[in-house]
């Protein structure tokens, strides 16, 4: 009998140890490592190398990296989409660390780094050089490019820290075409399900609970993976009736806000469901009122104002298959109540608004018909809505949640048309992932300085600086795209 040809097993480094280490411990050590990474970057930026604080920060990164290596047998820091992974375990964002994580993520991205592979035996000195190079390195023309950094690392004699570019499909700021399409399908299916659901009520039918559930799950997935694409879709108009797209948009904004305030994936699902169903009561409002082309009479307004509690009753009609959507009921009832409990419906007893209701209220406030239904009346600029929500306390939104919304949308929300100091016109594609640069979004140039239209495919980070440290482009003014014949949503689909 001939021996079968057996390829030698590929031994993984210290397998036994790797088996022992639980995900939890990687998360914990990984977090410590990242915090050390961030502090070292920060202190190097502020002080000379000899400074005590810098030295302590370097000690700390050296130590945390070494202890991770000891437990794990490997140390890889990887950037993928909007997440950081340590040894393929995704680090969870939470309220106490998201700013730190986001800063590290942005720094790596801007240098065009997809992965930092730390080999055994890395020296403290290597960390110092690597981090200083990261700080000093500005890729030419804002386009992330690793080659320059590689050179400097080699000159600095770094042999234990290897940098790799991001995988091809992982564009620096935009999602890949494929990812964009996945986000689009999720959006389309969610609109279809909502239509089936809300429209079905009028016909005495109900949509499959499974489909609704899947729709919300896919929105949560897409907010976690392709948030920019998905949020971009909220500016599309005319795809379907406004009430359906509005429901999906509120679902998307709610989940995105939820992500920023540290909700878990399953909590995001609960929140998304509440967002998607928040206007379910409108299924009971006569169509001639809902679709009215003329301003509503006071009586008709009153009818519309019944939708929050009508929603509660209507949602009871949905049960029978599956869980009773309690949270959605509460959100439906409360989403037009202001933080001081004015708004509607009026209540008898004082109540404490539920957190999810307040989030849905903020999402709803931003995606409110006058803003989105460009077809009717004068369009309102998204940045103005956001400013109003922040500054006008009478609107009764939870200011901290509005902050989270601004975190998500940036100071210039997606779909905003801006004039740059280069006299180019651009459409905002997404907030800058670096929270410190919320006023410098990622944009698409749609009109050149000469006044010519582009295909809008080039993404530009307004936070990128030239060799002298000056910003390459800055916004000088928000403008009305339509005045220049620009369709904002042309660029988000």
């Amino acid at each position: 009998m001939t021996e079968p040809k057996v390829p030698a097993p590929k031994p993984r480094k210290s397998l036994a140890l790797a088996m022992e280490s639980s995900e939890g411990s990687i998360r914990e050590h990984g977090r410590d490592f990242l915090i050390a990474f961030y502090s070292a970057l920060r202190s190097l930026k502020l002080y000379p190398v000899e400074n005590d604080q810098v030295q302590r920060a370097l000690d700390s990164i050296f130590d945390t990296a070494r202890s991770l290596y000891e437990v794990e047998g490997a140390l890889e820091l990887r950037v993928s989409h909007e997440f950081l992974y340590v040894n393929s375990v995704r680090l969870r964002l939470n309220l106490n660390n998201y700013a730190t994580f986001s800063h590290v993520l942005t720094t790596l991205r801007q240098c065009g780094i997809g992965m930092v592979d730390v080999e055994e035996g890395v020296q403290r000195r290597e960390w110092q050089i690597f981090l200083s190079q990261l700080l000093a390195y500005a890729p030419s023309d804002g386009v992330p490019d690793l080659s320059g950094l590689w050179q400097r690392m080699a000159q600095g004699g770094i042999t234990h820290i290897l940098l790799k570019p991001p995988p091809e499909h992982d564009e620096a700021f935009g999602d890949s075409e494929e990812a964009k399409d996945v986000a689009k399908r999720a959006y389309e299916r969610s609109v279809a399900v909502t239509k089936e659901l809300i429209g079905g009520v009028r016909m005495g039918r109900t949509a499959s609970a499974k489909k609704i559930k899947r729709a919300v799950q896919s929105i949560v997935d897409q907010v976690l993976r392709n948030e920019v694409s998905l949020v971009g879709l909220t500016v599309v108009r005319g795809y379907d009736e406004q009430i359906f797209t509005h429901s999906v948009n509120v679902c998307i904004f709610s989940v995105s806000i939820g992500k920023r305030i540290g909700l878990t994936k399953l909590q995001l699902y609960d929140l998304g469901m509440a967002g998607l169903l928040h206007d379910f009561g409108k299924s009971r409002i006569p169509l001639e009122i809902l679709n009215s082309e003329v301003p509503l009479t006071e009586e008709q307004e009153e009818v519309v104002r019944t939708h929050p509690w009508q929603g509660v009753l209507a949602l009871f009609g949905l049960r029978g298959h599956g869980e009773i959507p309690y949270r959605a009921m509460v959100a439906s009832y409360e989403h037009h109540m202001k933080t001081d409990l004015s708004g509607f419906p009026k209540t008898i007893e004082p109540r404490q608004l539920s957190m999810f209701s307040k989030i849905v209220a903020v999402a709803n406030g931003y995606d409110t018909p006058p803003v989105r239904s460009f077809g009717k009346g004068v369009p309102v600029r998204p940045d103005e809505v956001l400013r109003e929500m922040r500054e006008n306390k009478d609107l009764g939104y939870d200011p901290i949640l509005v902050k989270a919304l601004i975190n998500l949308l940036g100071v210039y929300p997606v779909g905003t048309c801006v004039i740059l100091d280069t006299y180019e016109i651009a459409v905002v594609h997404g907030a800058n992932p670096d929270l410190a640069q919320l006023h410098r979004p990622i944009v698409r140039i749609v009109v050149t300085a000469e006044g010519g239209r582009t295909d809008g495919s080039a993404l530009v980070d307004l936070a990128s600086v030239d060799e002298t440290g000056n910003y390459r482009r800055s916004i000088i003014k928000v403008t009305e795209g339509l005045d220049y014949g620009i369709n904002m949503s042309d660029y988000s689909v």
Partner: protein
Amino acid sequence: MTQPIKPGGADESYVVENLLQILWKALSAVQLYSSNNKIYLQAVDALRGALTLVWQRLDELQLQVSESALLWEDKKVLSQEDKSDSIPWTLFKDGVRSLTLSPGVEDREIIAFLHVIKDARLLAAEDPDDLLTLLWEEDFQHLRYGFVEISSDDVPRIQADTPVSQSESTPVSPGEIRGRLLREVEASGDTPEGVVDVDDFHSTLYFLDDWEVEYLTGEIDQEYQQNLRAKVLEILFEVFELQQNTKVRGEIISIIDSFLPHLLGVGDFQSVTLVVRRLRKLLDETQELTPDHRQAITALPVKLSNPTALGQLIQSLDDAAVQPTKDDIADFFGELGPHVLDTVLAWMPKLTNERVRETLRQVAERVAQEHPEQVVTALKTSDTAVLLQTLQLTSSLKVARLVPDFGRLLRHADTEIRRAAVDALGAIGSASAMKQLERSVEDEDRGIRIASIQYCVQHRYPGVLQKVEAVISGRALRGADLTEKKPFFEAYGLFCGNAGVDPLYQMLNAKRMFRRKDDPETRACAALALGKIGTPEARAALEKAKGVKDPLVRNAVGSALREIGL
């Protein structure tokens, strides 16, 4: 525990095939056994071992899913034609087309995955879940799956918007656009706009402060701690109050009607109690209720407390299907009203769960205390089990009002009932209770006779003397043992006074005329009774008997004298 590898080493596909066979066996174990079963545990161990072997050769394991097989590098590694029991089919049917496992999956996730498969197989078409929704909820980190959308619905694609109708003034040529732009910039001066002025823009404005983080964390906690059902119910009642519309109110009543069984099903007694309270409040406080609504609202709690519904509920408590707190249960029954007593009592003997029995006993006691008339009704039942429970309840409660209803029970055919009635009266212990008890000293049941006479002694009830006298002087005690004789003589001694000294003396000394000589036990009892009389005459009689030969009698005389004292 690891599986042995083929001698001479194994190639990678062997290791993968081996893994999937073990996975399939583990699935059977997961389906058949509970998680603390030995077979289950062995299967899980074997699976972990098999995965460990895979990780010695592969960095991750990517499997393709077809209708009847799992493929690895285009090679079938698990082939299962029989759909009813097939892993590939379960995955394929709901749209899963690929599966990627990576190291770490063996810790927890692979087992969770098997449980998901098991659960998914039990789902019906109309269930709100399918394999994909269940997989999603697990949020696997080491197990990825690719899937296709099975539903063939034609969902329209998003297109970029149709071009906006351009007004005359919309610039088209680059020159026009540039001209317009320059004019706009000039007109606005040079202050950039946005939500904030860039000059005073401070990024920390958008970072959350510590107190804000604290606030959010607190709010999230609260979101998940609130009683959502209660909150939704409050909303329903609020809408009911605010909306006068008959249709709306009718709908809310019917929602609540169908909601109640659900609440009970999940054991949310708190919410049910809330409903019942709020309904009562509606009846009391809402003026403009239509007669129909008034009737429907009145009917709701009644429905809850009908014996069948209540029986269901008690059963679910006993099965521990739901486990509300003792207080919640008590509040709930409290709201239902006293007529639940019958049902509760009827269930008491059938309960297996000690905690529930104890709780329901307290419920019953409370009702009985507050509504003795309900106990009177319960005492009329023909169901002996319920009657017995009721009597036990009255014994522990000592409700004096109930005494007149006992006469009938003391003649009940069932010994156990008579006994319970005697105990109840004994517990009540009032003169009228003792009066009822009198006749039971002649009951045909020995236990009942003894208990009755003991209660009379305990409560010092002289009314029983006549009966006792008849008993001890007649034949009734002839065949009785000491245990029975003793309390009768004791009672006699307590209540007869000096009139009893002589007859007892006769008995003690076995000098009764024309009678068979009394046995030593009876004589000893007579000594005991003299001791109870305790007068100088009784003492004198005892002194005279000091010298009797029978040791039992002599002892009894001694202790009786000691009882009287010097």
